[in-house]
């Protein structure tokens, strides 16, 4: 059954990838967002503010019950009726009862993801009630019988032509798709009428202030103001995680929410309602019900790891920056909640069945994490959620194998060496395999694959590393599987760069895989086991630096303290090691005087590995080195966007990996570059394979190779 559902999911992804309008719209959306967001945060220290919001939300989550009681007392004193629904069904019943008791027939709604979560509309309609969404995008998808494809822009997957056609049906009059203002006018007229004649308004809330019992909504269209003003009854459906202690906390969040959502400094309308406000149609006072939804939130708020997911303020930025969302849109990248946070919340709110295939669809590129205004470590939570699904369904065979092989370094390396023999006939004497038999790796036709080196780095080492008499610095080199067994020439280029610099480099044969692939497969125990092996092998205490030419390995080594935090024996050594981990570019800038190079104007584009620019926060160093080396550096828009590799991701989701790679390579080709430089062997594999498949003349170089070549030293 799980295989059938996976096949079905891949079919949906293929369908989305074939939708040209969707691809263009999402690309434009994500491109515009990048600029608007940057402008919105100009002059603010985003990481510091996001950390503050994260801490404030954590504090509020820790006292959810108390805040609820405090809110209830204040709001009821101000004339509201406060309800607590334990699950979705109860929330639906409470709201239907309110409608029945107040004799309401016509309901207007402003946008509420919480009401989508509990599938409120179909339930109310089944009770014979008329429900009209009044947010333009929500109305459009309601008329089409769809769910939202984005938390902020629910109808972003539709073209003006589709909207015009829909509005032609609704009005019985031909609508011009080129005149968007007149389409908006249709909605304004229709929905104004619906709001004026409704007897109940349902809204969500962005904040519930315990200090005053106030709720707040944040909107641009102004429909939430009308929905909460015109009808005589107002029901606000609010997730318990929206409770904050006071206005100050809400303002802190408000400082980031619109900027993260759309780049606006503030949304057009922020509305604060306290109690039963004046309402002539209801004998002077509005009938206000505030329905809080638990649906697993109270339990989740107590979870030491997953409580983070409740920090979410529903800005949608994790979708806006996600390369996968940018290819397939929200209907294929979420259930009700979409984007990275959707992959996590779907499991908790809508169950394993809905989450199973989704939760594996993450590149771990970290773009969502560094943009999250609440500092949620989304990629890590996604992996942990996948781990929960796996624990319930049983480990797939590949995970069992991975555990057995990875924890046994000699066996793992023995298998890698054997691969050299197996692939020889496929490579036909070259360094790339262009055609794998399809049954062996379905979907891999989008790139050529490198062959395993005949002699791994570990076997060459004794010949390569010359002893240094009185070393100025001692470096422990961490190779990583790809450099050790596939690209040892990248490490050789590094050794050439530091020749004569009195730097001693040690390469321990006991080092193994960094463990990132195990962590990505939600095999945490395996990841911890190899981490301990590497800590012992690298002996960071005896070195000034632990250097890796692989950004992914380096960033994962930096993560060892977190991974081993509960390990009394190894936690200290993990911290020690993490402090010494460094990437190539930063190391060279700090420790090595390179001759100003003779790159001789060779045009070089750069690909920023996710784990370097976001994982380690290194943005400019590699490009500065390239320019200093004499290269004609050529920038392009998506320089810091993932190449689509993601390790095993490119095997599990080849259709997406290929689509993400294609966009990147198209931009690289647009720069007119002769070479494409990066500093991660995984990215090299993906980029080189893709360029070779396209028949492009652009050559891919690891930064170490590009710099060594510019030094006029041997072509590595």
């Amino acid at each position, binding site marked *: 059954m799980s295989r059938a559902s996976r096949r079905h999911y891949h079919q949906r992804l293929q369908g989305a990838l074939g939708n040209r309008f969707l691809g263009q719209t999402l690309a434009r959306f994500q491109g515009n967002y990048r600029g608007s967001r940057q402008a919105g945060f100009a002059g603010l220290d985003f990481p510091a503010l996001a950390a503050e919001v994260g801490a404030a939300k954590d504090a509020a989550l820790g006292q959810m019950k108390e805040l609820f009681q405090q809110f209830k007392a204040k709001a009821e004193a101000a004339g509201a009726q406060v309800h607590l629904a334990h699950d979705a069904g109860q929330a639906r019943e409470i709201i239907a009862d309110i409608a029945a008791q107040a004799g309401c027939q016509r309901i207007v709604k402003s946008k509420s993801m919480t009401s989508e979560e509990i599938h409120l509309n179909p339930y109310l309609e089944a009770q014979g009630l008329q429900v009209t969404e009044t947010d333009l995008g929500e109305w459009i998808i309601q008329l089409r019988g769809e769910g939202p494809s984005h938390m902020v*822009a629910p109808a972003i997957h539709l073209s003006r032509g589709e909207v015009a056609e829909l509005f032609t049906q609704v009005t019985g009059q031909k609508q011009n798709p080129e005149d968007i203002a007149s389409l908006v006018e249709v909605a304004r007229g229709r929905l104004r009428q619906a709001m004026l004649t409704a007897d109940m308004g349902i809204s969500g809330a962005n904040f519930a202030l315990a200090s005053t019992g106030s709720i707040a909504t944040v909107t*641009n*269209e102004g429909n939430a103001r*009308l929905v909460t003003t015109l009808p005589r009854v107002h029901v606000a459906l609010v997730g318990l995680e929206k409770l904050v202690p*006071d206005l100050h906390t809400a303002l802190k969040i408000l400082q980031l929410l619109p900027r993260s959502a*759309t780049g606006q*400094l503030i949304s057009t309308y922020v*509305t604060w309602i*306290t109690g039963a406000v004046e309402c002539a149609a209801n004998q002077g006072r509005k009938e206000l019900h505030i329905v809080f939804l638990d649906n697993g939130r109270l339990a989740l708020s107590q979870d030491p790891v997953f409580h983070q997911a409740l920090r979410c303020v529903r800005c949608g930025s994790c979708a806006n920056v996600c390369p996968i969302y940018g290819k397939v849109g929200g209907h294929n990248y979420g259930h009700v909640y979409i984007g990275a946070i959707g992959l996590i919340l779907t499991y908790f709110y809508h169950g394993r069945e809905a989450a199973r295939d989704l939760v594996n669809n993450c590149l771990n590129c970290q773009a969502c994490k560094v943009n999250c205004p609440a500092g949620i470590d989304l990629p890590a939570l996604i992996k942990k959620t996948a781990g929960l699904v796996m624990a319930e369904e049983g480990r797939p065979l590949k995970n069992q194998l991975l555990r057995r092989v990875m924890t046994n370094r000699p066996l793992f390396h023995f298998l890698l060496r054997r691969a050299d023999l197996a692939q020889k006939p496929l490579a036909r004497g070259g360094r790339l395999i262009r055609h794998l038999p399809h049954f062996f790796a379905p979907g891999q036709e989008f790139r050529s694959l490198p062959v395993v080196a005949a002699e791994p780095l570990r076997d060459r080492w004794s010949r390569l590393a010359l002893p240094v008499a009185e070393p100025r610095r001692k470096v422990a080199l961490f190779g990583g599987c790809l450099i050790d067994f596939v690209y040892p020439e990248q490490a050789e280029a590094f050794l050439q760069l530091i020749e004569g610099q009195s730097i001693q480099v040690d390469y321990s044969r006991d080092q193994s895989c960094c463990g990132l692939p195990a962590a990505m497969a939600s095999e945490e125990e395996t990841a911890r086991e190899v981490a301990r092996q590497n800590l012992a092998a690298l002996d960071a205490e005896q070195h000034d630096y632990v250097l890796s030419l692989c950004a992914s390995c380096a960033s994962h080594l930096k993560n060892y303290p977190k991974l081993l935090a509960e390990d009394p024996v190894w936690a200290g050594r993990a911290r020690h090691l993490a402090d010494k981990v460094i990437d190539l570019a930063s190391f060279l800038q700090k420790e090595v005087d390179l001759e100003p190079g003779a790159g001789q104007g060779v045009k070089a584009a750069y690909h920023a590995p996710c784990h370097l620019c976001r994982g380690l926060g290194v943005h400019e160093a590699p490009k500065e080195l390239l320019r200093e080396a004499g290269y004609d550096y050529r920038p392009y828009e998506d320089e810091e966007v993932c190449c689509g590799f993601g390790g095993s991701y490119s095997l599990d989701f080849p259709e997406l990996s290929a689509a993400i790679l294609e966009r990147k390579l198209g931009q690289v080709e647009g720069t007119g570059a002769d070479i494409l430089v990066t500093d991660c062997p995984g990215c090299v594999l993906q980029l080189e394979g893709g360029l070779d498949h396209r028949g492009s003349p652009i050559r891919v170089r690891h930064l170490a190779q590009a710099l060594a070549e510019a030094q006029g030293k041997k072509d590595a």
Partner: protein
Amino acid sequence: MNQRELQIKFRQQAEAVAATVSQAASLEEAFAQAARLTREQGGACLAAPGWSQAETIAIRAACGREGLELVTQGLKDWVGRFHTGLTRAQWGVAESGTIVVDSASEDLRLATMLAETHVAVLGAGNIRDELFALEQELNRVLAQPQGYLAFITGPSRTADIELMLTLGAHGPRRLHLLLLEESS
């Protein structure tokens, strides 16, 4: 920022989100501008709830000069007929060009939500640099039972169809801010 700088910043930021801004030396002048703007936009009726008796008399006079009808209460019966909603704003926020309007009165809410044009009169001395500078004042308003407080930044907008920004989705199509120079 001093008061002058706050005003300049406020004006810049409000205009950046498609509000229009003008100065008025007195309330009378503000009312005259609101009435003239209504006539120029082709409106025939102005809604002005929440003003004192004396102010209402002045508004009525301004409307009279422009040939406009004035309505001050029971606005629900006037839906679709009033073109302009004329209200006060309690505070302005320079950082984002935002006005803060105490909207507890239902008529005042209807005037600011259902008008084609919302004209708000803001004392120039009531502009602060950011929302955090208004925390005490806002907390006082929120602590009053049966309150409805609005931060308004530019006219109503949507980008729900192909991300094309369109003004006037549900609320006013235009927001005009009158900066009142006299102490208020």
